[in-house]
């Protein structure tokens, strides 16, 4: 038999016992469908994270803290020469304090091999934000790090080096502050109120240059450019001593944008030797990805179990098929069909059943995933624009189909071998 006839015969044979084939196809369908959805979730979330990371950019930026030397599990011995600041990093309330960095530390950072520049991160905490005569709202302000781009709903990125005061406000502030929409806010002036250490209040006015979309890494804080951050810092530090003024929670270090992973690791080690801890954007988000990957792996594992069960369904189906067609196999052998061709015929039948189940499963998975995306985008995930929960990557979908066909082939080898080994005389006698 030539390959085409083999394929045609295999497909035809698989439809000879329709009920049995359909039931087996359903079993495979369930596995492939589940696998499509779980890998879709993995692809969707990871793609979102990747998009977020790439839109943040700043592959050449690292935040650096002073490493607190832990000498044991208990409380640390007080060292009058060091100052502590509250951590700005997210964590359980009150859990972490960090040793503050000083301008000496910053200067030391710049001497470390691989560091191109180091800037202290100024921690500013204005009291409120206000637009015109509207209500005053609590606000947290983060400073713009050059190279990091915000995901914007409208307007432009705040210019780090601009002399005027620029901010990007989060979308969630639009309505409370009294803006009709994102475009309406761009170009308007808002006021930031602050109180210095001596209790005196003042306000600073800044121009809204952009409106940021909420995302994984963008909290609800207002992003201020450098001159505004410095002005705010100076404003709130009035009355502080030089030592207190010159203490920072962390610093931002820039390195070569073309640095390889190895070079980044080397830089981190150099920082660690000097007593600092460096964290890249990738590190922060990598933790998310690791968790997502682990969850998806477990889900894929369940789908895999379903597929293995379906594989036994294929074995069963084909064994029955071989049994039923014993005489036909004997006849074909008597007529000069070789064992290899018989094996191929039954294997192709298994692979076809696998293909049918997986193709329908993947198709249905994509359909359901697309519907689910539409439904979720307006409900559960409305707060995360840009997140497509289920994304379908042609390569991974093709992989699913191929893997299922591979499982089907493996399952088909047992019955196919039995058919290939059948003795034509015995088979023709079979009643």
């Amino acid at each position, binding site marked *: 038999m030539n390959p085409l006839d083999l394929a045609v015969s295999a497909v035809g044979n698989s439809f000879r016992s329709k009920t049995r084939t359909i039931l087996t196809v359903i079993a495979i369908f369930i596995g492939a469908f589940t696998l499509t959805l779980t890998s879709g979730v993995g692809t969707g979330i990871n793609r979102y994270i990747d998009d977020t990371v790439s839109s943040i950019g700043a592959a050449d930026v690292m935040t650096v803290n002073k490493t607190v030397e832990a000498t044991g599990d208990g409380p640390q011995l007080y060292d009058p020469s060091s100052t502590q600041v509250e951590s700005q990093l997210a964590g359980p309330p009150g859990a972490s304090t960090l040793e503050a960095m000083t301008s000496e530390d910053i200067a030391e950072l710049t001497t470390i091999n691989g560091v191109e520049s180091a800037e202290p991160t100024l921690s500013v905490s204005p009291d409120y934000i206000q637009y015109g005569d509207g209500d005053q709202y609590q606000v947290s302000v983060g400073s713009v790090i050059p190279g990091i781009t915000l995901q914007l709903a409208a307007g432009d990125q705040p210019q780090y080096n601009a002399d005027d005061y620029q901010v990007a406000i989060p979308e969630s502030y639009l309505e409370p502050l009294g803006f009709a929409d994102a475009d309406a806010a761009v170009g308007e002036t808002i006021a930031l109120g602050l109180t210095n250490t001596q209790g005196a209040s003042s306000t600073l006015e800044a121009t809204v240059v952009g409106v940021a979309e909420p995302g994984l890494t963008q909290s609800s804080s207002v992003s201020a450019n450098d001159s505004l951050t410095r002005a705010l810092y100076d404003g709130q530090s009035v009355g502080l001593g030089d030592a207190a003024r010159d203490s920072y929670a962390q610093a931002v270090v820039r390195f070569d944008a073309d640095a390889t992973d190895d070079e980044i690791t080397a830089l981190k080690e150099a920082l660690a030797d000097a007593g600092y801890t460096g964290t890249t954007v990738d590190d922060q988000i990598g933790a998310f990805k690791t968790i997502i990957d682990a969850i998806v792996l477990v889900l894929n594992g369940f789908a895999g179990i379903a597929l293995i069960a379906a594989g036994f369904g294929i074995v069963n189906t084909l064994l029955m098929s071989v049994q039923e067609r014993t*005489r036909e196999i*004997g*006849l*074909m052998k*008597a*007529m*000069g069909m*070789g064992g290899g061709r018989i094996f191929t015929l039954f294997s192709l039948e298994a692979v076809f059943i696998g293909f049918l189940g997986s193709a329908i499963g993947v198709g249905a998975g994509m359909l359901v995933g697309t519907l689910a995306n539409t439904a979720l985008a307006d409900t559960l995930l409305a707060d995360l624009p840009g997140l497509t929960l289920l994304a379908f990557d042609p390569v991974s979908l093709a992989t699913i189909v191929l893997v299922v066909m591979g499982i089907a082939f493996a399952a088909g080898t047992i019955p196919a071998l039995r058919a290939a080994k059948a003795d034509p*005389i015995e088979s023709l006698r079979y009643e």
Partner: protein
Amino acid sequence: MSVPVLAARDVVKTYGRGPTRFEALKGVSLDIAAGESVAIVGKSGSGKSTLMHLLALLDNPSTGTVELSGRNAGALTGSVLNTTRNQTFGFVFQQFFLTPGTSVLDNVTLPLRIAGIRGAERKRRGMAALEQLELADKASNKATDLSGGQKQRVVIARALVNDPSVIFADEPTGNLDSATGKVVEDILFDLNRSRGITLIIVTHDEDLAARCDRRVYIRDGLIVESLTAHQESLV
């Protein structure tokens, strides 16, 4: 005398081992000339089917040789053996062995499909074989929807389609009533005469055997008598 198309030389065939050992053939020699019609006659268990399987190269003798056109067929293996069987032999079985649910034409062209002959040529030859058996109008019917006589004619068409030099018929009329059986017999003997196809019929039906050029009686694994049509007419 020309080289026989098929010959058995002191063929012994045993099955099993030890106490279950069973000698189906105990030393059989037989020459079958091209164009001859031979009936292998015997009761069930006599070894006649075993002899046919050996002659059709479906099995190997335990000792002795089977020769195909003077060459030892035991030397043929694998794909050469398969190709030889495919191109030289046609099979007609009592139980038809038609594939259910597929068309008459597909059943008839099965040997051609196995031989790897492609679509149009295959269809042409399949239709030619069906026309010869006056079944062309049934070509697209399901094989299982035919009557017994029609089925056996389909089987004969299938045996003919690869233009074989030998047709093996195992109780070809066993499942048919005598009128239909007669028609099928006529077709087989007509093929034997008009196309020179060697006919080897395994049967226990004396009337069918009597129509052959030669009758070989087999009992308990041995040939006990060999009669030609001519000899019988002398008796």
